[in-house]
């Protein structure tokens, strides 16, 4: 299961449609403070099914929708799509490429799609069962997580062991 492409529109600071293509190996993401790098990481977490708004640095889910600037109106919805090459058949789908899409509307409605077919959030979670990725994976790490591991905050070490074991 190889990441192929990430598309973001209306999610946090990504008011405009943005695309990142992933290759083999090491991809660096760089830029000045506040330009949106961690928002890219949040977008990946979110489309994989993260429900804890705190893990998305937000109080409520509505805060992930682009909330406007002095010169631009807020967006009506946030959308993120992540496409995988199913090259090791880790994903239980018959397709060679799998695209998951998540939308959240300011009205509070949510939509989830796998290869453009509507599904439930549960289906997205199930897609990644046992692959080591998904919400709160040991594969998505920031310094806050490093601190939690070192302080063993709320048994965070335990959690991670059980996910990997």
């Amino acid at each position, binding site marked *: 299961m190889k990441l192929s492409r990430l598309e973001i529109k209306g999610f946090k600071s990504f008011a405009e449609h943005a695309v990142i293509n992933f290759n083999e190996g090491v991809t660096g993401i760089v830029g000045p403070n506040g330009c949106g790098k961690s928002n890219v990481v949040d977008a990946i977490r979110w489309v994989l099914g993260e429900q804890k708004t705190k893990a998305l640095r937000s109080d409520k889910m509505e805060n992930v929708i682009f909330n406007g600037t002095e010169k631009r109106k807020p967006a009506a919805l946030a959308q993120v799509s992540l496409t995988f090459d199913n090259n090791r058949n880790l994903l239980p789908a018959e397709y060679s490429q799998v695209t998951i899409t998540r939308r959240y509307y300011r009205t509070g409605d949510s939509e989830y799609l796998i290869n453009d077919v509507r599904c439930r959030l549960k289906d997205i979670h199930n897609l990644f069962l046992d692959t080591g990725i998904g919400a709160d994976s040991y594969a998505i790490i920031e*310094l806050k997580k490093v601190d939690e591991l070192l302080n063993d905050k709320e048994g965070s070490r335990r959690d991670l062991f059980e996910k990997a*074991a």
Partner: protein
Amino acid sequence: AKEAFMEAFGKIRNNFIQVFRSLFSAEDKADLILANPENPLESVIEITAQPKGKRPLTIDQLSGGEKTLTAISLLFALYLLKPAPFCIFDEVDAPLDDANTEKFNKIIKEFSGESQFIIVTHNKRTMASADIMYGVTMLTQGVSSVVPVDLREYA
């Protein structure tokens, strides 16, 4: 379930000691210990680490950079048991000095044959170690956009 956990724990522990020694040095000591071995499914998991002849009583006595490297060792120990198809690190190299940044990048390079690594960083050495780079920018105030970056300026 108890045996399954104990078996996984044993492997993670060995991975941890091995990765720790590659990030610190070959003679350094570190360990993962079940505080309550009779009750492994509930027990707290303790980390001990003694890099370079030091004898800290707990990992809290280590320096900022040493703690970060120790946590990275644990994360890779878990990864080695069940390699995730991709790993994302957001500015995890910030507390590391030049030498430790190089070690961190080296171990990522090693595992990057197996998985894709996405590294958010401000660190020039880490950038030099990337195969491809994307720059995130705000050309319009408050609006992010993404552009590929030519790596030849950084290598």
